[in-house]
């Protein structure tokens, strides 16, 4: 058995000036790159493949396999694009990772680029986190000055440049093909697949789009080996991941653990549900993954077990809501989010999210009609599997799962506003007299 928590990506986060190259180098930083450069690119790719690491951006596709599916080299450019758009509601792991230790990502990009034959890599960062952008820009500069990037990396003959690109606010740009369109200077709308990015991605060249955490895990795999990686996690969900607990727990935060840890264990580490309350529902992997309840506390949080229990591991974004929260209110707000973020390209999602939002708002205000629940389910049925990209499908997840577990609350929405049944003050952190003071806000 491995330990309950396995800090690897998070290990340096508390070091003084954790974001600096010098700090990273003092802790084995860039040793994996040196090691990788002594191997053939095929061997590096092989090691990642052997680790069986599955993508950490939500879908869980094996990273090594994705790389090996790229069109074979033809002498033209090949690209690695890191998806640092982190905008899925509840997801808050990549941003703190890049703020505290940007170099583990840069090293991962360098090794991964070497493996797939990429000489110019991109990090597409959501634009709404300016300090993270500063840290990434500086990390690339530092790495370049130290010879980890540029022409003839560490004397190996390999060339690599990294461009850190800031987005401008659009959740859909996290979808990998929309991200590529956005990176090409267009509206961020998903592309028809096939061709997949591995065949024709950025500038119609073979491209791999990978999540921040996936790429940041690569240096560890190279340094310690695929078997080391596989000694953590489960057989089909190998390795570790950052689990993000937020909401009504005593101590929200980030927990890096082998895949397969349970919510019961994580809740325990987070000090349990906030005092005097009990768990009502939670998301295992962000708002796009069907909600879970107390009955799912012992589901191992790995890709297959969560899927077997009717949801998705997603991005391990564990948002916790206690008994004071109206599920209708929560779902209504998520539905507003999907409607707002729908890119408008396909009819089921553009129209469907619009109408679902109307119905959810009605139910929230206690003005629902007799057949609203059936109508919602019918719409979800019409969107799921018919939308152009996964955003449309995602918009149905909270609705169908919430109706499944809390149908009576939707029925109450036909006559009683949620605020009457669930006074919002009870859910707020500062409703109690012990108003929590922010550590920010200092004046000069």
């Amino acid at each position: 058995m491995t330990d309950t928590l396995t800090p690897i990506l998070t290990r340096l986060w508390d070091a003084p000036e954790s974001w600096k190259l010098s700090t990273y180098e003092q802790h084995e930083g860039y040793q994996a790159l040196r090691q990788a450069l002594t191997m053939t690119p095929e061997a590096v790719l092989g090691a990642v493949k052997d680790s069986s690491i599955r993508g950490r951006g939500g879908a869980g596709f094996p990273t090594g396999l994705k790389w090996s599916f790229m069109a074979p080299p033809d002498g033209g450019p090949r690209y690695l694009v890191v998806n640092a758009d982190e905008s899925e509601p509840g997801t808050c792991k990549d941003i703190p990772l890049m703020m505290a230790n940007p170099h583990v990502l840069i090293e991962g990009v360098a090794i991964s680029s070497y493996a797939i034959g990429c000489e110019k890599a991109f990090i597409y960062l959501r634009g709404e986190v300016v300090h993270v952008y500063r840290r990434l820009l500086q990390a690339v500069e530092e790495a370049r000055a130290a010879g980890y990037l540029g022409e003839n990396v560490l004397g190996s003959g390999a060339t690599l440049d990294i461009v850190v690109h800031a987005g401008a606010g659009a959740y859909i740009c996290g979808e990998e093909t929309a991200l590529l369109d956005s990176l090409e200077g267009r509206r961020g709308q998903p592309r028809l697949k096939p061709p997949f990015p591995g065949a024709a991605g950025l500038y119609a060249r073979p491209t791999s789009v990978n999540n921040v955490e996936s790429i940041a895990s690569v240096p560890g795999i190279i340094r310690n080996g695929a078997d080391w990686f596989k000694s953590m996690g489960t057989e089909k969900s190998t390795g570790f991941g950052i689990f993000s607990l937020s909401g009504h727990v005593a101590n929200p935060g980030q927990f890096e653990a082998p895949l397969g840890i349970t919510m019961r264990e994580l809740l325990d580490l987070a000090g349990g549900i906030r005092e005097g309350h009990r768990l009502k529902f939670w998301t295992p992997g962000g708002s796009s993954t069907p909600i879970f309840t107390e009955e799912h506390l012992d589901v191992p949080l790995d890709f297959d077990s969560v899927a077997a229990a009717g949801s998705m591991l997603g991005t391990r974004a564990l948002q916790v809501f206690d008994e004071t929260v109206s599920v209708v209110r929560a779902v209504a707000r998520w539905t507003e989010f999907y409607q707002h973020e729908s890119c408008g390209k396909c009819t089921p999602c553009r129209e469907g999210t619009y109408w679902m939002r109307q119905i959810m708002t009605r139910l929230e205000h206690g003005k629902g009609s007799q057949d609203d629940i059936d109508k919602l389910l019918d719409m979800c049925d019409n969107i799921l599997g018919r939308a152009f990209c996964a955003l449309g499908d995602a918009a149905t997840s909270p609705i169908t799962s919430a109706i499944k577990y809390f149908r009576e609350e939707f029925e109450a929405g036909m006559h009683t506003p949620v605020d009457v049944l669930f006074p919002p003050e009870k859910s707020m952190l500062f409703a109690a007299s012990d108003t929590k003071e922010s550590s920010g806000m200092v004046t000069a």
Partner: protein
Amino acid sequence: MTEDLWSLHDTHEAGYLHVSTESKEPYAADVLERLRADAEVVIARYPEKRSALLPLLHLVQSVDGYVTGRGIDLCAELLDLTTAEVSGVATFYTQYKRHPNGDYTVGVCTNTLCAIMGGDRIFDTLSEHLGVGHDETTPDGKITLERIECNAACDYAPVVMTNWEFFDNQTPESATRLVDELRAGKDVVPTRGAAKVCTFKEVSRVLAGFNDGRADEGVGAGPASLLGLEIAKQQGWHAPSDDASGTGAPAQPEVPAGQTSIDSPSKTTPTDAPPTKPAGHDTLPGLEGKDESK
């Protein structure tokens, strides 16, 4: 995004956003010269120049405070696009503003989790206090209030972003104080971010890819980000074969070939020292080095 499409139909000038006549006035010669020089740097980063459009729109905002007609003209000219193509992109993304933005965008996260934890109350309080609604600017031009979506800081809910810097664990009182300080022209310090919040124009320049030398300011991580790490250190938990002291020296002999580390977990080896206390890290008393044998 769909609303954005609709409002595009409202524009009177094809190819432009809602623009006032002065937004189409030509740039002063020196401003234009600097813009062109900066744009050249931006364009040079990319294999194909159209990729420079998003950063160039941030650059326009760093000069004009929003996406102006003249800014659109310039982007179109530099990238060989039509003004309609540039406007189409500018209207798609929420960070591009169609009318003059305040010096500070105060964005209250009202996505589900933050909203429920108090974000809705914070937004309502600020809206009433400032007398403006979503995407509206105070008459003094200081603050543009926004509802924002999840900003990847849910473990610090309720979250307020000021010019895209983090203000964690906010209350209606702390947020009110924040906007009052901003309006009084005082510097404010984010919870996790630079030593002070820069202006909208300054931050827009960073977002165009021009670093402002502030990367070393602020913390590496906030307390919630460190919680798991802290608990692991207290418990002596770490990854297999991973040196818990983090000094880089191997903590144990290599696992023999053919034997996976599952069979010989490093934590049972005597050489595996309990975690040492790193500088600046407070360990709870009584928990240090506990549980080595687990």
